[in-house]
């Protein structure tokens, strides 16, 4: 019985792994194909079913005039907007979350929990509800089709995630640590950056990861709020899908768009298991 259970468990894991990995393998395989290999029926194994080449990858940094798709600028636009938006969201979100966790706010019927919910409610609303006001506001301030405009919108979209995660994290940090730091001679600001912040690194990393994932993969707002001057990577990739879609370049571009997130996940993973608060309050 136990052997059967173990076998079924492993079978489920293998099937799920295939389900998850297959699109990546498909994209990797396609990125090394050419027009013939893509259009002449299904081919899977390089050097057996088709002769791999780097045409799809080379096209990524060639201009359209040279027959390329040029995703270099959209890529760095995405990096800049996502990094800036995430960084500012984390800074503001962490400060807001600390205040919501440690101080009591009262305004009529509104309490701390309500304020936290107001933050996250922006993520609950359908994006299209927010898109129109964003479009009108950015237009008023001449920020449509600009990186600055996108960063502002991304801060509004990403900060709720940072607040939501960090409030929960700070609530788990014993308030006695703050009190001990006060008694040990820290003023309230020093308590935050000398004691609370160093012990919140795992939470900040998790919040940062979520901000980066949501920012990096956003298509809707970058599509609505940009036209010709500024283009982000998801929009550039989707734009490749025309009457004659270069699937090899599209696959390579899709892999490039995933690569930063995978890289960041690998780098920060080790920090997630470190720096816990077990020594603060046993």
């Amino acid at each position, binding site marked *: 019985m136990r052997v059967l259970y173990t076998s079924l468990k492993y079978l489920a894991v293998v099937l799920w792994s295939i389900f998850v990995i297959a699109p990546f393998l498909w994209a990797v395989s396609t990125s090394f194909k050419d027009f013939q290999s893509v259009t002449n029926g299904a081919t899977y194994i390089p050097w057996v079913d088709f002769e791999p080449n780097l045409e799809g990858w080379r096209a990524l940094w060639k201009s359209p005039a040279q027959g390329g798709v040029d995703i270099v600028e959209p890529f760095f636009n995405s990096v800049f907007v996502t990094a800036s938006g995430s960084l500012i969201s984390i800074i503001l979100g962490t400060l807001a979350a600390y205040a919501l966790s440690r101080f009591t706010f009262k305004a009529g019927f509104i309490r701390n929990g309500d304020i936290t919910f107001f933050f996250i409610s922006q993520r609950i609303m359908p994006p299209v509800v927010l898109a129109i006001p964003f479009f009108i506001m950015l237009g008023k301030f001449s920020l449509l089709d600009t990186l600055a405009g996108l960063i502002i919108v991304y801060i509004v979209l990403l900060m709720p995630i940072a607040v939501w995660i960090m409030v929960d994290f700070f609530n788990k940090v014993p308030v006695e640590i703050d009190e001990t*730091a*006060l008694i040990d001679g820290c003023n309230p600001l020093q308590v935050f950056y000398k004691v609370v912040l160093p*012990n919140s690194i795992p939470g900040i990393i998790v919040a940062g990861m979520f901000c980066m994932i949501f920012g990096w993969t956003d298509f809707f707002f970058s599509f609505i709020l940009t036209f010709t001057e500024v283009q982000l990577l998801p929009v550039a990739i989707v734009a490749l899908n025309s009457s004659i879609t270069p699937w090899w370049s599209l696959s390579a571009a899709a892999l490039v768009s995933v690569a930063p997130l995978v890289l960041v996940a690998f780098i920060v993973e080790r920090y997630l298991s470190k720096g816990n608060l077990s020594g603060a309050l*046993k």
Partner: protein
Amino acid sequence: MSLIASNLSFKPGNEWHLDNVCFEMSKGQIYTILGRTLAGKTTLLKTLAGLISPDEGTLTLDDRDFGSIPVWKREVAMVYQQFINYPHLSVYENVAFPLKQRRMQSDQIKARVMKALQQVGLDGFENRKIQALSGGQQQRVALARSLVKEASVILLDEPLVNLDYKLREQLREEFRNIFSSEASKDSILIYSSTDPVEAMQLGGQILVMDEGRILQQGTSKEVYENPNCTKVAQITNDPAMNLFEGRVDNGRIILSSEIDLELPQHCKGLATGSYIFGMRAAGITLNSTGFPFSVELSEISGSETFLHIRHEMIGVVGLLDSVQNFNTGEVVRVQFDTLQLYVFDQNEQLVSSPYRGLE
């Protein structure tokens, strides 16, 4: 140096957490705030630390207004019942933290930290991470951090309550040695506890608290021998002092239709009337010629047995200095040692104690 609290009151909701608290404390002394859970001990300590601002009252230290000094500038140190340390710092950095905040020279910091670590028995642990220490060691780090500041007021909020029995006993002894040594000769030490045995063992002065009020202040001997009311009598004894109502009539104490006792010498002169009588568990023993009580519960504690017994409305706990087993409902014969009898009036104030006689 003296710390004076005058009429400290704090009422965050509907209940008083501090109710007109007054005391005077002197340097080089240990003061134990003894009270049950929610008596207001932690609130009082946090008020002294500056973490809570009282609604009313003043705090002065050496005639200076202590209450208006922000917490980070107050000369206080505090150890919590939870083992609070900075998990991102090593043992050395934890202990050095308050000194670095004062921007002291690094060689001075090192000297003081090493001395404090030696006092708490953690020399050699400087580079360890906090997470790598046991609970007792973590609490020693917190204690070292409180000692290293050489603060005017050291607050210890039930620092041993989360330790296991053996370690608690060991650390209690060490605490007493540390506090009675040079380390604290210039400080006022305030220790809060729910455990009367701990309070008595630490010696010094005891302040008995209940519902935000200080019920009695005195030396441990004085508070033990002459609790000024029934609440103090219960709080300062473990198990709590037995209290039972009865009457004094014709030179005898009448507790029930079957139980009457001879009025002991220290109670001679008590007027006829109703009283509340108190007796510690040790004053109630088994004796074949005693009064019949039925067993409700027997608890073995180490080499002793606590016997919960009842006769009509009188429910008491007796202490037997041996391990014995009893069945629930079993009838035992019990003797009251009236030489250990306390008498309180109907307002629960002490009327007579074995040590001081009639008030």
